[in-house]
């Protein structure tokens, strides 16, 4: 999977290991846990969008399936958190299979709208099926998950746990894209017809990736439920699906690292902006959480207009260009 990716994962590992030693504030650790959960969902979405070339505007629905499966099975059925999470994964994968087989025959706009419709329907169900989901009131008292007998009920413990899962997810993702399936997917992205003529079963590949990305989202949802210990339909709306797409697109569609970068950046951004706003209050500018939506939209638009490969991709391109220039300079000197 390439030494660069190993190095990247090592750097990420060291940063994660050091973070709680530097950030001695539970609130900021909590924000970083959300960053990890978004990362996980975005890695899956990036595999789907960047590598299989299929858009999904309904990914928050899979996060919701994971979260509600975990919530319902632990609170109402008394199952252990791990069993409930596994059940959530199977449920998500099953739903992804049922929706994916007809949906992935669609292309471009049709697929985008179909997944958007699917996401909206599940959100409506989450609000309306009060017996199962608790409706708008949600589900309370979801237990914390434990690992090797240690309950992960503090911010620091959950921080390490969630980022460990992100690292595993990354490792798995990198292995996938450097395998036969990954190369097939890249061919698929380039030209579906050409890939098909080379004997790549394009339909099957697309569905496999769709199911896999739903599993990433489902795990992210389960972890969310075990971290917050409470769920309601709010965070699983269509707007969250759009936000996930924004994170992947801002980071860079065609690079998994871009998804990680985009997820962390956009999760932290509102925090940055509101803490910076203290300095601007003197001149009468106050940042309110209400501006988040507008800021996300503007960032997404600017990236898509001027840096379609995303911040991470654009950064990589810039380094590439610089390297090329240096090489040419050196050659010219010789």
């Amino acid at each position, binding site marked *: 999977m390439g030494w660069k990716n190993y190095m990247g994962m090592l750097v990420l590992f060291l940063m994660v290991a050091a973070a709680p030693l530097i950030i001695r504030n539970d609130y900021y650790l909590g924000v970083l846990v959300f960053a990890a959960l978004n990362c996980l969902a975005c890695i899956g979405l990036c595999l789907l*969008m960047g590598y299989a070339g299929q*858009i999904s505007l309904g990914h928050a629905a899979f996060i919701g399936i994971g979260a509600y499966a975990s919530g319902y099975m632990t609170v109402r059925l008394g199952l252990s958190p791990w069993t409930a999470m596994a059940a959530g994964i199977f449920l998500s994968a099953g739903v992804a299979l049922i929706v994916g087989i007809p949906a992935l025959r669609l292309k471009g706009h049709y697929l985008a709208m179909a997944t958007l*419709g699917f996401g909206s*329907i599940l959100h*409506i169900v989450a609000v309306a099926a009060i017996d199962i989901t608790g409706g708008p009131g949600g589900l309370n008292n979801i237990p914390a998950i434990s690992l090797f007998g240690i309950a992960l009920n503090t911010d620091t413990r959950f921080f390490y746990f969630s980022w460990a899962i992100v690292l595993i997810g990354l490792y798995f993702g990198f292995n996938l894209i450097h395998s036969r399936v990954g190369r097939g997917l890249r061919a698929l992205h380039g030209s579906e017809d050409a890939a098909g003529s080379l004997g790549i079963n394009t339909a099957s590949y697309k569905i496999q990736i769709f199911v896999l990305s739903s599993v990433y989202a489902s795990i992210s949802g389960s972890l969310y439920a075990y971290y917050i210990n409470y769920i309601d339909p709010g965070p699983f709306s269509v707007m969250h699906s759009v936000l996930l797409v924004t994170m992947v697109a801002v980071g860079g569609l065609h690079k998994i690292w871009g998804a990680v970068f985009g997820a962390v950046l956009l999760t932290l951004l509102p925090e940055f902006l509101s803490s910076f706003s203290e300095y601007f209050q003197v001149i009468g500018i106050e940042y309110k959480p209400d501006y988040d*939506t507008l800021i*996300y939209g503007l960032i*997404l638009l600017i990236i898509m207009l001027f840096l379609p490969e995303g911040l991470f991709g654009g950064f990589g391109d810039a380094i590439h260009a610089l390297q090329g220039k240096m090489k040419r300079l050196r050659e010219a000197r010789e």
Partner: protein
Amino acid sequence: MNTGGGFSDFLQFIFMGLQRGSIYALVAMGFNIIYNSTGLINFAQGEFVVLGGLMMVTLTMTLSLPMPVAFVITVLFVMIMGILMERLTINPVKSPSVMRLIIITIAVSIIIKGLAMIFWGKESHFMRHFSSEETFEIFGATILPQTLWIIGILVLVVICFILFFNYTMTGKSMRACAINRDAARLTGINDRNMVMLSFALSAGIGAIAGIIITPIIQMDYARGALLGLKGFGAAVVGGLGNSLGAVVAGILLGVIEALGGGYISSHYMDAMALLIMLVVLFIRPSGIFGSVEASRLKEF
């Protein structure tokens, strides 16, 4: 709700369905205008409806302008927003991929939503009806005069639409662009202006939908996504690009939704139109009224 028995209930639901369906039909027509001239689905279509509704609220309720004046100003305002969207975000993109265009229109929809939240706040806005708010009865069903306004304006818009696209030079030029852009350009039609015009018209129709529905649903900034999605559902069921099919499909979806909400479950009312959209997308993506060949031509 009227308790006058089975038939009057049924009639009540039908009128409610016509009212909702008229809005879906207008939104679907907006989708089709842009789709026909660019092959693009504008994910910000629902936001035009919200802008129209909220602007109308400000003009009539806060500034107390007379209804017809406010109506014209609102439609012009939203049309200008449509033109701005096309000039600033669609026109400058060279060699666009479908995914990039989808994300761009999504970004525009988030921006409009964010701006609407800042200018109009998060609460829903009350607006007075076009004429009297006193209901009258038809066979035991209680009807608001606003419902008749909605249906009447839909009919008027459809008539204008047919006249424009069949009997004016500009309308015919837009149709020519939809059929074959290169050939249209060879005959001297400025295709870039046609694209801009299609955004303006589409925004205008969206604004009209927003204006006429606001007295009944009380508009708020977050309604755009669902209205847009259901309007797209109508456009798909009617066959994407087929505007008269969209009108019929929109009415149909509205009526099915109202009947389903009345007889099956009001909690799942919003899901019904979407479910029909998914089923049609999965089984017959060319729509009920669309021809399979036409949809193949415009495939992505």
